């Protein structure tokens, strides 16, 4: 059986069964946090603990990005003194953390979600409004 050939075709044809959206959690103010409530549609696909762990880690990463600490103050003051030209050479702390988040999501998708027919979309691609979880059709059932 020509595995690679059919897999490449199937990649394009992996049909989306549903999309679940995890909305933002505003109980701590305007800080970027997502609701950790486990959606019912994912019950058959993934372990609740695992999923909540992912969301909790994401929340922690976003909190780190927006943290008001000495590091962010120093960065802010330095930027102001250089009339914000310093950001032409270096990236902001927030951007660094966003890169970390992108890598984390990539890793989670590769290891945990793709084998189960799920795909997490990086919230930055949705304007930090939602975590979009795409549920793909279970082909094994339709065989």
């Amino acid at each position, binding site marked *: 059986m020509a595995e690679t050939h059919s897999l490449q075709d199937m990649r394009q044809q992996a049909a989306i069964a549903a999309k679940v959206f995890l909305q933002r959690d505003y109980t701590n103010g305007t800080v970027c946090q997502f609701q950790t409530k486990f959606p019912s549609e994912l019950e058959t696909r993934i372990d609740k603990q695992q999923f909540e762990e992912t969301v909790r880690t994401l929340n922690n990463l976003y909190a780190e990005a927006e943290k008001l600490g000495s590091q962010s103050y120093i960065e802010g003051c330095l930027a102001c003194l250089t009339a914000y030209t310093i950001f032409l050479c270096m990236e902001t702390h927030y951007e660094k953390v966003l890169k970390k988040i992108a890598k984390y999501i990539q890793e989670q998708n590769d290891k945990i979600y793709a084998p189960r027919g799920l795909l997490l979309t990086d919230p930055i691609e949705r304007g930090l409004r939602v975590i979009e979880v795409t549920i793909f059709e*279970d082909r094994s059932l339709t065989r």
Partner: protein
Amino acid sequence: MSQIHHAALDQQQQPGQYNQICTRSSSGSCAAPNDGSEPACPGHRSRTPRRKWQVFPGRNRFYCGGRIMMARQTGVFYLTLVLILLTSGLFFTFDCPFLASNLTPAIPAIGGILFIFVMGMLFRASFTDPGVLPRATPDEAADLERQIDSTGCSRPPPRTKEVLINGQTVKLKYCFTCKIFRPPRASHCSLCDNCVERFDHHCPWVGNCVGRRNYRFFYLFILSLSFLTIFIFAFVITHVILRSNRTGFLSALKDSPASVLEVVVCFFSVWSIVGLSGFHTYLISSNQTTNEDIKGSWSTKRGKDNYNPYSYGNILTNCCAALCGPLPPSLIDRRGMIQSDTPQTVSQTNGTGGGSYASTQLRSHMCDQDQCIQSTKFVLQVATTPLLHSDPVVLAPLPGKTTTLGGPCAYLAPSQPSLPSCGGDVLTLRDAAADSHCHHHLHHHHLHHHHHFVSPEETPCTTPQGALPCPAHLHLHPHLSVPTPTALYDPSSQDALHEDSVRGLVKLSSV
């Protein structure tokens, strides 16, 4: 890509077929097969790939390939620019030489630094994305709509959500334009047609909204501008006084006429700009936005327990947070390339008005089918027997344009022959071919039996179709007087729904 192949080969024995899912982000290499196909079909597909700013839905203007973002009306911004440049230019040209030579050269130096800072802050405030929230994708909007509909039983369903933030109840409103629930402190700018995070106000002087991402630049702009204005004002007056000490007041004015203009401009600017700076200093120290202050959202006049849940408690922390806090990146990815969606949805959405949603549409389709069959049976039961024998298809006319029961069954209800193809109010059924078949069917019978059902409510678009009965049905013409149920079975119609309803008719007519 190779990672996925490896994973696939390792999991050959797995029952799941998920290893073919591309886990790269949408801007990654997953679109390779698509990119490969594009040059192959040069026809209408060979458009140059467009950047997202070119299709941005808000009322903004973009320059420098999407790097600069401003509001649509920029006239007042140019006025601001002209005023600052003119006044500063006159100051440096006419007053500074005298002051540098007579007092100290530090004056033009400080003036220069202030001027550069003011311009820098102005450009940053004007050209930066204020914190625009991108609009919801169709899937998200559909999901939200579903949630809203399921919770609210009142019509219209409530479009607000209440959240408890630091002990204070805050109402989140639903934005109809952007199809999202606005985060707290966000507001929709009607001039720019965008939802902006931590919306302060729309500033025409700066030619942009002032929001989360450019508030500090705006504040530093007005602060430095007030210093610059006071600086220029003070030193121009000094210059005139020093000159008039030597040569007299009037000749001093004649020697440097520009000073008069500068003094006038600065005098009027000082009041407004210094006032504005003071106001914003107050807002920053209490961590409020102009919007909240104007509405009195956190004022104690509203209630004794009303307080600002976003304030950090002390003035210093509030100031530091507003001015030196982390700068979030732009959420709208102006310079990103537009990607076409690669995975296909199970139930494809088509354009039935605004907001066609996949699964709800599928559900409503099923419900309509059930309704249709039920109502067909009901109607046939109501019809009298002689009528049934003579013409099994003729149904009792359903009054008016009922959108509840009669709507989805329009192609069987003779009083509404116009609905299916002419985009009436209800139909969500997608099989237009079947609709037109039934359409022909009905219309054909109308013509044959001279029924008064051919009502004036027929829209013009149906008549041409009805005037030419489709050839498939013509052979039924001689059979109509004979109640042969099988005549109703039009073999050319492939729609299962149609067959079901026809079977229903047949069963009833054979009573």
